[in-house]
């Protein structure tokens, strides 16, 4: 790669990843329209990793981790950030090579850098999911998570999905040579109106940090958590046969939305510091129970089995 190939902005890196994975046959999806803690929560990953049907998707997912808020002051910690997520089922034999191609596509010259696959097994206690893989290091920096899903929602994955997660800000800062995330050019610095990451997010980071740590109403969050939990179970208990349409319509996705909500409320409660260590495990267990119910439901639906409805 030549210097001319180095991207100029955060968004160019995203666009290049989109173009690259589109060229490799992935459906380029849009972010899920809910608050999630990581790209894995998008139903395109969590649910689609289940069942027998082939799948290939790539998308940006805005992610929220309320406890990571630093009022926009920390050079690399944000309560709202972007993940780039690729999921392909069954995992192709050349997934590592495909992944390395994506690094070249965003301007990382593999002849000059030291890319390593270092053991890192992935587990999501809230999703009842785990897999084996690596964190990928570039010159000692973790640039991606590379996982072969083995289980989701308590179900064995068969076939196995290969999942790639790029922490976009960190990766982009590395490629662009930026030390503080807020200084990173979001669009082309030569554009008539150049915007930095800070122009767009410094204020929101500040506002949300204050909100997450000190002002989100905990009683309301607790109530919402319980509502979401109850709603999730209720939706899945509804008779499978829809009386209006006279066919089987299992509401796996709407139920899963409630699971996502419960998870986010839990994260906010955690940031508010009202969850003790012992309770923490109990809450995680409750969200996992929801994820498991949703997975149980999803695997019976056409998207998982491939049978016509």
């Amino acid at each position, binding site marked *: 790669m030549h210097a001319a190939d180095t991207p100029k902005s955060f968004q160019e890196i995203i666009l290049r990843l989109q173009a690259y994975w589109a060229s490799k046959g992935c459906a380029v999806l849009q972010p899920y329209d809910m608050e999630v803690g990581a790209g894995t929560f998008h139903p395109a990953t969590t649910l689609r990793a289940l069942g027998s049907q082939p799948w290939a998707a790539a998308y940006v997912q805005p992610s929220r981790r309320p406890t990571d808020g630093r009022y926009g002051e920390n*050079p*690399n910690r944000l309560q709202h950030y972007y993940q780039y997520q690729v999921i392909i089922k*069954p*995992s*192709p*034999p050349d997934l*590592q090579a495909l992944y390395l191609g994506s690094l070249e596509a965003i301007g990382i010259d*593999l*002849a*000059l*850098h*030291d*890319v*390593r*696959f*270092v*053991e890192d*097994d992935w587990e999501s206690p809230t999703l009842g999911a785990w*897999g*084996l*893989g*690596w964190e990928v290091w*570039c*010159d*000692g*920096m973790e640039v991606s998570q590379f996982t*072969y899903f*083995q289980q989701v929602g308590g179900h064995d*994955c*068969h*076939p*196995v999905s*290969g999942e790639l997660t790029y922490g976009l800000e960190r990766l982009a800062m*590395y490629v662009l040579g930026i*030390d503080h995330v807020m200084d990173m050019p979001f669009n082309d610095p030569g554009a008539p109106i150049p915007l930095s990451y800070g122009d767009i997010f410094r204020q929101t980071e500040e506002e949300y940090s204050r909100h997450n740590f000190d002002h989100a109403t905990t009683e309301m969050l607790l109530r919402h958590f319980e509502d979401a939990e109850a709603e999730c179970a209720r939706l899945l208990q509804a008779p499978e046969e829809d009386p209006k349409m006279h066919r089987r319509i299992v509401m796996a996705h709407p139920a899963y939305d409630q699971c996502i909500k419960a998870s986010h409320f839990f994260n906010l409660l955690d940031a508010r510091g009202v969850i*003790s*260590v*012992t309770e923490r495990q109990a809450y995680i267990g409750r969200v996992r129970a929801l994820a498991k119910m949703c997975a149980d439901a999803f695997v019976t639906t056409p998207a998982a089995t491939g049978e016509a409805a």
Partner: protein
Amino acid sequence: MPDLLIELFSEEIPARMQARAAEDLKKRVTDGLVEAGLTYAHAGAFATPRRLTLTLEGLLARSPDMREERKGPKVDAPEKAIEGFCRGAGVARADLEERDDKKGRVFFAVIEKPGRPAAEIVAEVLEDTIRNFPWPKSMRWGSGSLRWVRPLHRILCILMGDAGEAEVVPLDVDGIRAGDVTEGHRFMAPEPFSVTSFEDYTAKLKRAKVVLDANERAETIWNDATNAAFAAGMEVVADPGLLAEVAGLVEWPVVLMGQIDAAFLDLPPEVLQTSMKEHQKFFSVKNPKTGRIERFVTVANRETADHGRTILAGNQKVLAARLADAKFFWENDLRVARDDKMQPWLTQLENVTFHNKLGSQKTRIDRIAALAREIAPEVGADADLAEQAARVAKADLSSEMVYEFPELQGLMGRYYSDAAGLPAEVAAACEEHYAPLGPSDAVPTGPVSVAVALADKLDTLAGFWAIDEKPTGSKDPFALRRAALGVIRLVLENGLTLRLSHWIKRAFDPTSLQGVAADKRGTVEDWAEVAAPFLEVDWEPLAQVFHDALARHFDDRAALEDFFRERLKAMGARNADKWNKTVFVLVYFTIIERDTITAPDLLAFVHDRLKVYLKGEGIRHDVIDASLAMQGSDDITLLVKRARALQEVLETEDGENLVQGFKRANNILTQAEEKDGVEYSFGANPKLAETDAERALFAALEAADARIRPAMQAEDFPAAMAAMAEIRPALDAFFEAVQVNTDNDIVRRNRLNMLSQIRTTCLQVADLTRLDG
């Protein structure tokens, strides 16, 4: 004789699993081959991040032919029996031979197993090895069902004949066909190539930028790192674990040395080292002039056109970000330590669960502090300091630095206690109370550290014993064996005289007794008085039940429960079956259970660990048993003194013979006592001695006793044992000349009384009857 080369080429194998996997490959394949009759001369196993390799030299070309004859049923046996025999032997009915036997004519099956070519056997054994490989964790990938540590891409499996021709072993495991092809370095030489022998394989790999042998990679790394450091007037901090790990992360090691930004040089060296090692797998490089860690060594997996400049710059940047975090934690923590004396951390520990049945870290600290205070005088520590140290010893668990680097627990406590202006002994105890962590770890000697270390370990042991979470087999999730060994080494290496059984009982958590504080626990009678009205019985017989239960020394809970139920029923107690609903009875039950079941069981566990420890020190197990059988054996310093003295004397001829003489005396005496139904402990009268041998033994005994008494008083066991050993010649001469059981009853009894004296004398240091042989 052919050679065999196997390579299993996969995506990156976790570094920590590689060495073991290479050994497992070797073991499984060679075991399988040998079992099938294929022996070999030499085997070698290797691992890199992407491959497991096995080379075998001097393999048999075929397994040997086998011929087996099996005797079957008689020719006139029922047809079913004959059919069954044919099935079992795998021969056709027509192929059976009839032969004469002692019992008549019987069938014989002759089973011929012709030898098979090596390739066939290798294919079977390798497939079986791949399918059943003992990875600590394995996975599936794609649409297949094969499991491997990460996706398996290639199987190289060739047999090389004497003429040098290489033959691919025909094998297909879930669509992966064996071949003679492998690949080089992922980035520097990715082209596949084929190989014809092990020498060809290693040479081509090296050309393709892969060093096959992990030891060679580690050596290269270590040499290059120390050379680079030396050139800069510095030295690399040795870390064999890290070296092995890093050697498992690269196929082509390239050492690069970089600078640590001056802004971070004031961090504690342990923090620099841990942060660099844990997060980045960097070696620390020390400047001997300043004593500080000023540089780092990172190991890249490739050469580059810019000689690693880009790679080093990247690593340096990542390190700076990491150390900025560490510095942030350090400064925040120091503020809490200096300004608030660590109090906020202690408050936080109220919400941290230690174990869900054993309460929070805070309640644990309260227990340890109380215990440390009590133990302090026994170990020469100031009680206030010991309690203070125990109270802050775990405070650093709430610090940001320890949250990030759990392995720095204790050490950070020391820094923060210093920062809080606490006494030096307290700061030292924060670090040292975890020690000793292993058999070779140093034992603290400062009295305050010793008090807290003992209290911490005793609390852990008693706690997990109380909730019945004892180690079983290879499982010891709470490291209780380590804790017990820690107690043993703390006591022995500090020469402490502690009554272990007392401290173990004391360590059992009073709060587990249904919330009854220790000082509220009165006598048996007090408890009986409170409990009696609930059972509608008189308190005196109830107190008797408690006393009896204590005296019975139950060794299991169910038996103790049954005892309670029966006795209460007999007393006509109301709800005799539901006695355990009566909290007061239950509390006392718990006390009895603790004193008669749990605490002795824990003491026995500590004794077991002591045996293991002393065996490691070369002390015979029967010597340990003989010493353990003595009164006061829960003072393990005393016990070990006894054991060492006994062991020492047993290594001399006099000692060994004394034991034989003692045993002979003891046998004669025991038999006589059993037969006569008396104990001959009246003391012997020298005037009744008939022979010179008897008189000499009297004199020897007297002389020995005069020396043994003061030696025992001074607990000088070697001197006591040496004095005993001197009885030996007189004792031998006595048995030579004298028949103990004579017809003269007075003389006989006198002799038996003398043997009894010998027994008493000889049993003072250890129970010699428990010695082998």
